[in-house]
């Protein structure tokens, strides 16, 4: 369990299936993510069941819970590379009533602190659609810097969109948030 200020991050459990199934079929949620297709409950159940345990090689996939224990979304570190000491970040706040309340930023800072402070990573990157301005503002607050823009890299809602690439380095995160926490 990783403790943040507003949220805690825990491993996903089979009981999370119903919530996951609802969120990933909610187009208002998934329009900001790279999921396009309606997904069956069976497929989602299979995905939850077959997921390997969280570790360096497989990356992290964590449930975001409020301090009251409400599961509101997920955050993950993927494509973890030991030589380059980097990983990609993904996040989804599936429960829309929890948008724009600081939960996302708190979840991100918490998982970044784990990535830098426990996994010994040097860099965490992410991709975000150009139209997702709320997310870009959130990422910048967490310490991410825009590094590039992949032009017309994503097609959705009838047209091409740019994908913004952002990254944060360990030293930058340490200066902003401190890495050595909770010893």
């Amino acid at each position, binding site marked *: 369990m990783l403790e943040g200020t507003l949220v805690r991050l825990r491993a996903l459990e089979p009981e999370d299936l119903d919530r996951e199934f609802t969120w990933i079929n909610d187009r208002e949620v998934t329009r900001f993510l790279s999921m396009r297709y309606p997904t069956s409950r069976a497929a989602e159940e299979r995905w939850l069941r077959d997921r390997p345990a969280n570790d*360096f*090689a497989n990356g992290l996939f964590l449930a975001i819970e409020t301090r009251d224990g409400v599961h509101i979304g997920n955050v993950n570190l993927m494509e*973890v590379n*030991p*030589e*380059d*000491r980097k990983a990609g970040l993904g996040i989804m706040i599936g429960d829309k009533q929890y948008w724009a309340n600081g939960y996302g930023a708190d979840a991100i800072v918490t998982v970044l602190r784990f990535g830098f402070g*426990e*996994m*010994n990573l040097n860099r965490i990157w992410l991709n975000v659609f150009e139209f997702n301005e709320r997310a870009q503002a959130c990422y910048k607050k967490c310490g991410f810097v825009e590094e590039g823009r992949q032009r017309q890299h994503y097609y959705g809602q009838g047209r091409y969109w740019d994908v913004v690439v952002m990254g944060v380095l360990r030293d930058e995160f340490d200066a902003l948030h401190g890495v050595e926490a909770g010893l």
Partner: protein
Amino acid sequence: MLEGRLVRLRATEPADRERVHSWVNDPEVTRYFTMRYPAAADDWVWLVDGPPNGFGFVRLAIETKAGLHIGAVNLYQTNAEDSSAGLGIIIGEKDAWSKGYGADAVVTLLRFAFGEMNLHRIWLRTLEYNERAQACYRKCGFQEEARLRQDVYRHGRYHDLVVMGILRDEFEALHGAAYVEGGGDA
């Protein structure tokens, strides 16, 4: 192919099997290791064959510059979070002992471990009576860190196991920057 000064390190091939088989059945060689039992050709096949080299495990053949296959060197128990790995080396061809090949192979592999794999620490374990190896490792920059008392039973009695380690900064202070364009002077 990793180029040292006296040796090069290359990927192992199935054809290396016979030579390795003869090494691991030579008691003059194996007295320095924990290989105790008569071994079939396939028992030590992991020394020459297995999954491709990667972060998790590196196994390389040591060849002289003239192309003679004299031994093997490997990195194992690689840990991504702790950025560390263990080093093992065997010079199976006894004629090649005490010629500097071992030290050159070790430094060449360390250069790869620090300069390409981005590791922070390399450790090794060696039997207390393997004084030639310990002198070689010290020359390469390893320090003795621990002595596991009576950790290994061989030749009718218990022996201490010596644990040695080297950190990236220590390697670079001794040998220069880990990454050198076109190979370094080991």
